[in-house]
């Protein structure tokens, strides 16, 4: 490619100005760390959303390895008005993957900043750089025989704690609400300054990873799902690995059981009898994760009929709903809580308990047990084979942990998905008082017809849920502006006031969560 003639440019930046910026980046980072050739950028354009790849094509990628380099990068960006989209491991599948919010943004790839800076086995804390993966951290704990365990999302082996936590992702252990377990951030601001949150700014302090709040306003939250700074270090808490972990499943026969399940589980979860982020997964989620393909049961497009779902449930020995939870502690503690759980289930008159001894190495129990025990795997990617074709978007509305609310959301989502010829593939991840209702909108991205249906479907899901007072907690880059509207005008004005104060040139990830000084209208 002629370096004077870039195929893709940032919004409002000329060829000449962009080339000057590229030369400044090359001088700073070295030529090999400024990727501009199409064959170097192609990996960043692989998306799962139902929009054209070209809409999310980057103009270049910068590979930084030190905080100092990141500081210098933002200075160059300010000079030439270059917008950068920062990624840590770029494994945000179903939310935009590694691609930027919109065409032309320069990716700042921090994968090579992958140092595990500090792990304290007594205080059970860690401090890592953005490129560290959960797999890398897991290996570190194993190799050093540290009795600590990780909590991670399903793409555990190849994704990382900084990216997941900064996007407020969740996992499946008692530490599953990851942002709640975050403690101390280091951020490069748009003006090049380095901010450490919490206790991190105190000279000589050693409490950065143990005390979250520091003094005055606690700032960490405003940097998550946001574009006010670039996280270059993050601290978080690790759970001590208990002597006993007892994963188990409760299987329910009928789709209509969801309300009773939630009512049954909520007291156990709030009282911490069951301490982890319990999952209530529907039949298709579990079938997909166990490598069942739709093509084994039917051909042609359209929603999978309930009769087929029942057949799969029967053939694969699954429930219409499958609850996964675990108990943690000493044998005595686990025994006490196991008695409470089993008696509660028995008293309810429905639900079949399956223990690890009964399930053995069968999927999906095995990978669920591993996720609840801090052992990485990628088994849940089996979901992508249900329809095939590489299309996936997470629709993730928040719900109260109430049976009638979950039933209402499930019914509404299934109706809309089926109307567009798609399937309800959903799970509820139980927080203390909330539910992350996570629905994988799976479609065949090689089919233009199904891709267009998926796009329309996602819009309708947002619209119809909004009418009922529901909103998603996180969304892919193609729908960020739309979802920001759900949260009201005052929040948006405040967000943009902060953006103007901290990043007046709008260089940090414009468009993230709908925050973009160029396009926002009061």
């Amino acid at each position, binding site marked *: 490619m002629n370096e004077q003639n870039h195929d893709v440019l940032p919004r409002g930046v000329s060829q000449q100005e962009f080339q000057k910026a590229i030369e400044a980046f090359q001088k700073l980072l070295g030529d090999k760390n400024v990727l501009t050739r199409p064959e170097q950028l*192609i990996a*960043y354009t692989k998306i799962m959303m139902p929009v054209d790849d070209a809409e999310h094509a980057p103009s270049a990628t910068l590979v930084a390895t030190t*905080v100092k380099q990141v500081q210098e990068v933002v200075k160059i960006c300010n000079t030439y008005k270059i917008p950068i989209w920062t990624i840590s491991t770029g494994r945000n599948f179903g939310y935009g993957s590694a691609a930027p919010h919109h065409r032309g943004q320069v990716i700042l790839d921090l994968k090579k900043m992958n*140092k595990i800076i500090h792990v304290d086995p007594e205080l059970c804390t860690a401090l890592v750089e953005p490129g560290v993966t959960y797999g890398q951290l897991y290996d570190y704990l194993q190799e050093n025989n540290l009795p600590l365990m990780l909590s991670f999302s399903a793409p555990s082996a190849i994704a990382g704690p900084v990216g997941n936590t900064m996007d407020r992702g969740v996992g499946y252990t008692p530490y599953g609400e990851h942002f709640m377990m975050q403690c101390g951030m280091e951020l490069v601001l748009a003006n090049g300054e380095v901010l450490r949150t919490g206790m991190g700014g105190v000279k000589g302090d050693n409490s950065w990873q143990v005390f979250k709040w520091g003094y005055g306003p606690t700032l960490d939250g405003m940097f998550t799902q946001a574009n006010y700074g670039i996280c270059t270090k993050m601290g978080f808490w690790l759970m001590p690995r208990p002597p006993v972990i007892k994963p188990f499943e409760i299987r329910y026969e009928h789709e209509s059981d969801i309300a009773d399940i939630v009512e049954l589980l909520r007291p156990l979860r709030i009282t911490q009898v069951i301490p982890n982020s319990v999952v209530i997964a529907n039949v298709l989620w579990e079938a997909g994760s166990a490598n069942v393909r739709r093509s084994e049961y039917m051909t042609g497009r359209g929603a999978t009929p309930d009769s087929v779902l029942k057949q799969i449930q029967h053939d694969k020995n699954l429930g219409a709903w499958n609850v996964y939870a675990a108990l943690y502690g000493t044998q005595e503690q686990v025994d006490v809580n196991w008695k409470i759980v089993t008696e509660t289930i028995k008293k309810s008159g429905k639900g079949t308990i399956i223990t690890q*001894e009964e399930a053995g190495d069968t999927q999906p129990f095995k990978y669920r047990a591993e996720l609840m025990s801090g052992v990485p795997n990628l088994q849940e*990617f*089996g979901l992508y084979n249900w329809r095939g074709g590489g299309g996936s978007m997470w629709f993730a509305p928040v719900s109260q942990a109430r049976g009638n609310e979950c039933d209402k959301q499930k019914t509404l989502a299934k109706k809309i998905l089926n109307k567009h010829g798609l399937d309800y593939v959903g799970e509820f991840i139980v927080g203390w008082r909330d539910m992350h209702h996570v629905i994988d909108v799976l479609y065949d991205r090689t089919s233009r017809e199904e891709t267009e249906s998926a796009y329309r479907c996602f819009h309708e899901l947002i619209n119809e849920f909004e009418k009922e007072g529901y909103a998603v907690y996180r969304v892919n880059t193609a729908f960020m502006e739309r979802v920001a509207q759900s949260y009201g005008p005052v929040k948006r004005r405040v967000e943009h006031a902060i953006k103007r104060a901290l990043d007046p040139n709008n260089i940090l990830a414009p468009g993230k969560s709908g925050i973009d000084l160029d396009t926002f209208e009061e």
Partner: protein
Amino acid sequence: MFFLKDDLVVKRIFTISMTLSMALFILPAYAAEEAVERDLGNSGQWSGGENVYAKVCGYCHDTGIGPSIKGRQLPPEYITHVVRHGFRAMPAFPEPYISNEDLKSLGQYIQQTTPEKK
């Protein structure tokens, strides 16, 4: 059930205590301002194609999620293409994630493997 036997627990606690004692003896008190560029090891660098396969590819290609790619004499150029472009649901991996050198080593490793025993 995951069960750590008592003697293992004792051994681990002893090992950790020793490690900690030594660490405290050698290192100054940990402070936020010192949290720079230190690397405890396991630096995230791949140690060859087999390592990349085990830590990335194998999670899907040895478990029935992706097709088996061992023992098929797949040319390294094909592996390179799929890793960089992705394929349907398979994600793409850019250079900072898997370098050109590691990708070459990965391709050679996969080409030389024998089929997995069923």
